[in-house]
């Protein structure tokens, strides 16, 4: 990965492929999500917690497939869903800190681009800058996706902190059988312990509710139902 600050001079001729596809790594089984998306996500995706293998810390993710490299929402160049998670829409862009040369803690956040991304092209795809160096509507759209993610990551961190504080995270094992008889059992998934959540003191419940966390927790729990939709998707694929 080669992340550099986005620059309207150096990168004026770059174009970015906005279609989806296996060639861009869109076949990953999970994608990270943030609490601000939960309401939209739960209509279509099961939301879980999973560990970042590098730090052992939890993130919220949606499960997209039942096998290791399988995204059942990926349909050729299309993402077959009403709502596409923010992280699947940010392309080769990430938020980074401007380098000030004197410790980066207070540095402003700016958009970085990953020059190793296969989405970056010279001829096809969406341009990033107009002739006069201003951002194209595409890049402006990416900017608002990144801004939403920034806020969302902070919320996710606070929500995860509450879940850990109250010991509400539990591993969940999903297994089942497809129409053709093969079994599936995706591992490394965690969810929220419903009984322990119920058993919290009235005081804690009110506090979580006022901060909006209680709703988010129940959205995660409710979204488990969407695993059945994933199985249907997979079965439809098998019968095609």
């Amino acid at each position, binding site marked *: 990965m080669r992340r550099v600050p986005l620059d309207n001079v150096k990168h004026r001729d770059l174009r970015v492929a906005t279609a989806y596809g296996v060639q861009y790594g869109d076949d990953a089984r999970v994608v990270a999500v943030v609490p601000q998306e939960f309401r939209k996500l739960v209509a279509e995706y099961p939301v879980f917690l999973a560990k970042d293998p590098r730090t052992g810390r939890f993130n919220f993710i949606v499960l997209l497939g039942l096998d290791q490299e399988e995204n059942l929402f990926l349909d050729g160049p299309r993402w077959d869903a009403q709502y596409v998670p923010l992280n699947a829409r940010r392309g080769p862009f990430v938020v980074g800190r401007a380098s000030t040369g004197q410790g980066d803690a207070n540095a402003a956040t700016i958009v970085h681009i990953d020059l190793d991304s296969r989405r970056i092209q010279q001829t096809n795809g969406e341009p990033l800058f107009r002739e006069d160096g201003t951002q194209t509507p595409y890049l402006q759209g990416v900017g608002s996706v990144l801004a939403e993610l920034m806020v969302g990551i902070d919320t996710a961190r606070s929500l995860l902190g509450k879940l850990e504080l109250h010991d509400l*995270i539990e591993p969940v094992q999903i297994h089942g059988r497809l129409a053709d008889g093969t079994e599936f059992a995706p591992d490394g998934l965690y969810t929220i312990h419903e009984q322990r959540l119920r058993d919290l003191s009235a005081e804690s419940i009110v506090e979580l509710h006022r901060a909006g966390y209680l709703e988010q927790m129940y959205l995660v729990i409710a979204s488990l139902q969407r695993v059945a939709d994933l199985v249907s998707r997979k079965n439809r694929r098998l019968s095609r």
Partner: protein
Amino acid sequence: MSTPVKSIIVVGGGTAGWITAGVIAARHHAGAEGAITVTLIESPNVPIVGVGEGTWPTMRSTLRSMGVSETEFVRECEVSFKQGARFQRWASGGDDDAYYHPLVLPQGFLKGNLVPHWQERRRDRPFAEAVCVQTAICDRNLAPKQIATPEFAGVVNYAYHLNAGKFAGFLQRHCCSKLGVRHVVDDVTSVLTRPNGDIAVLMTAHNGSIEGDLFVDCTGFRSLLLGQHYGVPFRSRKQVLFVDTALAVQVPYQSEDSPIVSHTVSTAQPAGWIWDIGLSSRRGVGHVYSSAHTSADAAEQALRDYIRPSVPDVEALSVRKIDINPGHRTRFWERNCVAVGLSAGFLEPLEASALVLVELAAGMIAEQMPVTREAMDIVARRFNDKFLYRWDRIIDFLKLHYVLSTRTDNAFWIDNRAAPTVPDSLSELLELWKHQYPWHGDFVQKDEVFPAASYQYVLYGMGFATNPSHLGQSTKERQFAAEQFEENERMACRLLAALPSNRELLQAVRSYGMPKV
């Protein structure tokens, strides 16, 4: 009329005292309404000996039972992950003489015995390497788990290397803030007894009298209550285990990214052996020897020679001398007093048996906590029987390391093999194992301190040979063994690719902590 046991007084603020106080307090919800109370009296004037920078895997369940966070424990006690021990120069004394006693069981150990198959067909590889993955992990200084592995869980079995002084302080804070243990910093000046001989009250210098129903003596070598007050005799075991002096030194790492070895390295010397334990902050190195077989000067020279290659100025390191009187009390629980830790006894640091005995004793006291004084004598008798048996088994197992050696460079090794110094129980097992392979049924108790697997690792690591039986091996058994050897190879490939280095994992624990689930 029965007398309820309500108040537990622990005397001594070293690791033994705090482990015992914590295990009892956690198990019995000390401080809760109607529950027992636990008080620990710590002298401000007696320094902590701080034995044992190595633990057993049992420490994981002990800490967990006390509600300790493994992340905090690792961060605050200079902890590193330990996966067994590597014994160098113990058998022949040569340069290539080394074997592992890992912490994982041989593959398929609960289903079948791999020794005969290894002896028949796999002798080209060391026993431990052929039957388990851990030696390969240790050779590469890899960790026993990943950062995403939950607290106290392991990809492979593990224990700890720790700073005993920091550990005592850590446990103190945990016991007092989370487990309701009352901490009194004071000297015990005298012991007052009831007419029946029970301890009634401890008089202290500044806090007056402290009353209790059960007194736990964790006062170290002083053995204030069991030894000094009750005069329970000490049984020296020096005629079996000759080591009586330790020289200890702290060695800095050469650089911030020097590997942190994930096992205890034990290197035999002419009249003893040198331990080398990697903490996250430094190494703890020491020479234990028999003063009858070498001089203090020669022993210190051997220690400095061992360290010399890895430090710039070895003469600047200060060496601390500790006298060891190998042996134990003839009883550990007398009336309403029970000794745990050095006050009960000490042998030598080989195989890190000191802290595990503390855990076992604390566990049994907590589990069998007599509800009334009337029940206590029965519990005491059982406790004494059980721990006398355990001390004997530990002595057998430690002696095994010396008996199997073929070294002749010093009388130390030759004397160690002399028949009168070998316990009958060990001689009998060694005779048995000439004819059959060590297995579960060779031992009496269900919860042996050292299982048959440990004997296998040491025996065949040191070149012991069992005569093949005329009964041979069935096709089914051969098939089973072949599968285990293959499974071991597969596991090794998978784990060597997936595990971080011990240092990387410790750094990640510092930065991110370990997940609880």
